[in-house]
């Protein structure tokens, strides 16, 4: 099949199989920042934003999201212009192996867009679709708290 998608703000026409999952289509087309850890909607490494909402891209048929807005971690910020959240993860020591990190950044981005001042419980809820085996989550939660503070500070200064 062939379909059009808006990926990180750019319109893209991609080829895919009718039963293909979005994670595979994205990875086959160079969006390797979307990781594939389990293909069963459990680990969250493949998380993307679909029309601004976080979803497991392994749980989506590519064909079903044509013409939709897809945002990967690179659409949030890249090496040359990282997002506050990405810097917060780096500074808090929340990145160990980093395989799960793009998914966590996506989940955090969605959370802070909706709720710029989350409680610890709300943070934990927001990232309950992401597994991390390295950090024990402690520094990830720290990073999200710090990111929220930084974003608020930035907004206040505007």
């Amino acid at each position, binding site marked *: 099949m062939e379909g059009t998608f808006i990926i990180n703000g750019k319109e893209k026409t991609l080829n895919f199989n009718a*039963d293909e999952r979005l994670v595979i289509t994205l990875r086959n087309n160079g969006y390797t920042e979307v990781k594939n850890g389990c293909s069963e909607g459990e680990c969250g490494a493949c998380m993307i934003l679909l029309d601004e909402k976080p979803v497991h891209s392994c749980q989506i048929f590519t064909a*079903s999201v044509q013409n939709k807005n897809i945002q990967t971690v690179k659409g949030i910020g890249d090496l040359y212009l990282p997002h506050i959240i990405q810097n917060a993860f780096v500074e808090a020591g929340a990145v160990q192996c980093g395989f799960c990190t793009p998914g966590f950044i996506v989940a955090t981005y969605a959370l802070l867009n909706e709720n710029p001042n989350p409680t610890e419980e709300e943070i934990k809820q927001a990232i309950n*679709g992401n597994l991390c085996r390295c950090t024990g989550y402690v520094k990830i939660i720290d990073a999200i708290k710090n990111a929220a503070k930084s974003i608020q500070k930035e907004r206040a200064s505007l």
Partner: protein
Amino acid sequence: MNNLKWYFPKTIKEATDLITKEKVLPHAGGTALLLRNLEKINGLVNLSDLPLYYTKKEDNTIEFGSMNTYADIISKLKKIDTENILLKSLQNSADTPLRNRITIGGSIAFAPPWSDIIGALIVLDTKIILSGKNEGVFPIEEYLKNNKLKQDSLITGIRFNLSKWKTFSYRNIRTKKDMPAFHIVVMLQIENDIILESKIVITGTVNRYDWMKEIENYLKSREIDIIEFSKIEEMVDVKFSGKRFTDPEYSRKLAGIELSRGIKKLVRES
């Protein structure tokens, strides 16, 4: 499998025509379809262009279009009825990203034993609105039991009444993100320290779900001061299959304890 054909109907009529004529399955959020073997079907009918994201509220009745996701339902119910049993059941279901994708229609059509939604819909006496061959409005229990209703028909919405009843939901899970081995839902109508009525269902049993009729009868018109909670515990006499890695006998005992605790909690709060 690569021959799978996708259809993108723009109207409900187009969609139901496709479902009736072709060897196809409706695609809502897709999460349940991914668990199925699609080799035997020819195509998928994507429902995302249909006007099924609606919410209608008239007096005490609320109706949700079947394409509402769990996240949609949670955010809509939060605004009108925080005690709603469906809200309580869905709030901790699956995880945040999955709740953005699982639709109410797909979830009812799939209705796995670990469903977080079925128990709540049953005690709410929910009506399922169908289009297609079996066009009409059917009680949820009839829909679950009568497989013929599912044929060549599309769930377009659900409807139930809002109430002032007190509610309680308990999911037996191993970690916060887990499919429950069983799910208890309770609705109590309490007035002047008397339980007028109750509705109690446990899902995930070998019968898929069981009404706790004996307990409902025991509670009916009973003053809350004279409820014997240990009795309620013993009245939970349901069979579990042992799926989801939980011992059936333990599940039965646990269901009794948690159900009795749930009722105690509601009674105390009233």
